[in-house]
């Protein structure tokens, strides 16, 4: 099978979340946005003693950093051997179909949205993994607020940004 159905993905992701939460696993939630400012600190060699935020995220940032290395490895191996989706590409098919054919436009929008995404995730204190998956699994009110805002904004942005009617 080259693709897993959504329900199998949901069940497997749930098992991974439970393993990670469990005291026999990592005794913490899965998160995937704290590693970005952590890596920024590593790459630009910022001193954690000087920047309070780096001090604040030292432990979760490192944890997610190692998890991310695993995710890169797991994603790469799966894309080469199972899903056969590995190839160098600059522009997704859906962008060509509903936005434009310009590589420059795609790269500029990617850069801009990547920048916005991390500012947004760090302001909210989490992302799809930390808030939506891990947070809502704990019935956290903060994560439900985040999930609700993101769902609405994603759909509104999709309607305004893409030529959804063109086929």
């Amino acid at each position: 099978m080259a693709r897993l159905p959504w329900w199998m993905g949901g069940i497997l992701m749930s098992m991974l979340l439970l393993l990670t939460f469990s005291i026999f696993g990592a005794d913490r939630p899965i998160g995937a946005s704290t590693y970005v400012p952590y890596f920024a600190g590593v790459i630009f060699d910022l001193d954690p003693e000087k920047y309070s935020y780096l001090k604040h995220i030292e432990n979760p940032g490192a944890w997610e950093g190692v998890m991310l290395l695993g995710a890169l490895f797991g994603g790469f191996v799966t894309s080469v051997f199972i899903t056969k989706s590995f190839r160098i590409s600059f522009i997704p098919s859906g962008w060509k179909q509903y936005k434009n054919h310009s590589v420059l436009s795609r790269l500029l929008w990617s850069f801009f949205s990547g920048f916005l995404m991390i500012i947004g995730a760090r302001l909210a204190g989490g992302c799809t993994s930390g808030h939506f998956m891990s947070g809502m699994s704990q019935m956290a009110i903060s994560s439900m607020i985040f999930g609700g805002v993101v769902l609405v904004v994603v759909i509104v942005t999709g309607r305004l940004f893409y030529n959804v009617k063109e086929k």
Partner: protein
Amino acid sequence: MDTIVHNGLWERIEGMFLTVIEQGHGSLALVFLIGVIFGGIIQYTRVDKFEKIAGFAMLKDTIVPKMLFLAVGLTSIGLYFMIEAGGAHYHIKPVMWQGLIIGGTLFGIAMAILGKCPGTGPISIAEGRIDVLVGAIGGLLGGLLFTLYYDDIFKPLMGESAGKMILTDFFKGHEHTVVLVYGIVITLIAIAIPKVEMFDEADLCQLPDDQRPDKS
């Protein structure tokens, strides 16, 4: 000068591994393995694709919300009883209205345009997507800016914490019922969301016909 920066970088990366070993949230190998499985599930279900995430923004694909809601519904029930049995702990993020609303808005706009989130982005980079790599460079600069101006700009922007709350706090004495209803309702939502898919020929043409999800 170059060598100093170079040494600094390697020391910092070594420091990352040491921090993970010392903080007691699973061994280094386990944390890496959690990442491998995380990346494997996301790649195997293809939910990192632009066509799945931006596709949902256009309401032309619903695989991402279906899978997310199912994972949350199942986990919420399992996790609650695991915590009750002493096998896990809560790790709740506080309600900070300003941060959640401003942050959620920026995040939502970015997710629709990039067609990735911070967890799925790296999986796409691992399959050779240069546009997402450029997005990650933007993200690193965002992370840098956030770190540099945290005390002056971003922390005040997040506002005051209204405390850490979970749903059962509002239904004292009925915790079990609330958890079961919550978990079942979220799971039913996952099943009830109509299944719509946007297929990408460039992704599927590598597969034999009998393995293509759009032809079976």
